[in-house]
């Protein structure tokens, strides 16, 4: 466990972007307190702030606002989330973390096959 606090997570730029994107796509009902709480638990588990997670996965490109997907980092986060899912026993909680990454431009999905 690290000292990543809920307030740090809530104030992160990438979290604001995530919540704004959810609001835009799904409406108000897609915003609930457990989003930030769950992401905070994941951040504490891996010892990274939300902005760091996105920086790990998307390398700035040559032009402004263009990024290159770091496939190895993405793969590592997918594995970390799978471990989090196994630990919590909750696909829903793991999907909250995946949602955070997706709305920030990092595509991923859980394994659907047995």
């Amino acid at each position: 466990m690290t000292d990543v606090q809920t307030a740090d997570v809530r104030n992160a730029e990438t979290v604001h972007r995530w919540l704004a994107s959810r609001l835009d796509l799904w409406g108000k009902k897609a915003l609930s307190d457990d989003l930030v709480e769950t992401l905070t638990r994941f951040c504490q588990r891996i010892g990274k702030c939300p902005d760091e997670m996105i920086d790990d996965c998307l390398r700035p490109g040559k032009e402004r606002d263009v990024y290159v997907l770091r496939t190895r980092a993405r793969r590592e986060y997918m594995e970390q989330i799978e471990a989090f899912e196994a630990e919590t026993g909750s696909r829903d909680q793991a999907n909250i973390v995946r949602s955070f990454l997706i709305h920030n431009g990092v595509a991923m999905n859980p394994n659907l096959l047995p």
Partner: protein
Amino acid sequence: MDFRQVVGRQRTFQYFLPYRPVERPKVQVILEAGRRSSRAVNTAFSKAIVTHRDSLSAEEREKLKTPLSAALVDTAPVYIFWYHDMDARRVAVEEKKWPTVASGTLVAIGALGPPHGWSHRYVQQVVLPEVLMPGLDAGPQRGGNADAALAMAQGLLAALDEGLAACLAPFDEAGAKEVLRTPDTWEPVMGMFLGYPAESWEAGGQEPRPPFESMFFEQNAAEPFARDAKLAQALAESGLGGRPAPVPWREREVRALARMLGLPQE
């Protein structure tokens, strides 16, 4: 008409009633069908120009002919020239024109979304620069586009469904460019020659194909797909099939058609 019957009706039709015009609404149906075909990232790769034989001068018609399509140009009352717009991806990506992936529409309408890993930010920051933009600097590239052919194939089925005979054949690109004034970024797909059939719908019978097992495989390229013969027969009877060419009376039909249409008999 039932889907399977339309598929089973397809032939390389060669004989059209030269005096029977094709109604404009039927031509529109063909285009509307092509417009609804699947296309990658919802981009408008497919274009078409409708031309009427009788609106062209003899000189213009000559310009459209290839050795493989000369007689069709002379006998079909309507031609639809299908093209691939090699500039379509650039227009979608740089001008953000039309409802495509690049403009964000497919995410906005819920066709692609977070359950599949997609978001507006993913489109703007990753898909555009990494998938859709690479190669644009090189300018339009020839080499064909399957999506443009999907549109044409769907138009062909619609033509048959509308009771028309149709045949796909190549046309002379340079001549067509002169006659049709096509942009430099369009490359030909195929010409669709259309009309009411002068020949029977069987058109001599269903055309030969290579063995099924040489085209279709299962799990890997060395394992032919095991075709169930009874099922193949049932599907043929439900509309996909027909008597194999040549039907016994084909030669007589062809001679009669040649006489009727003033075409060479020998």
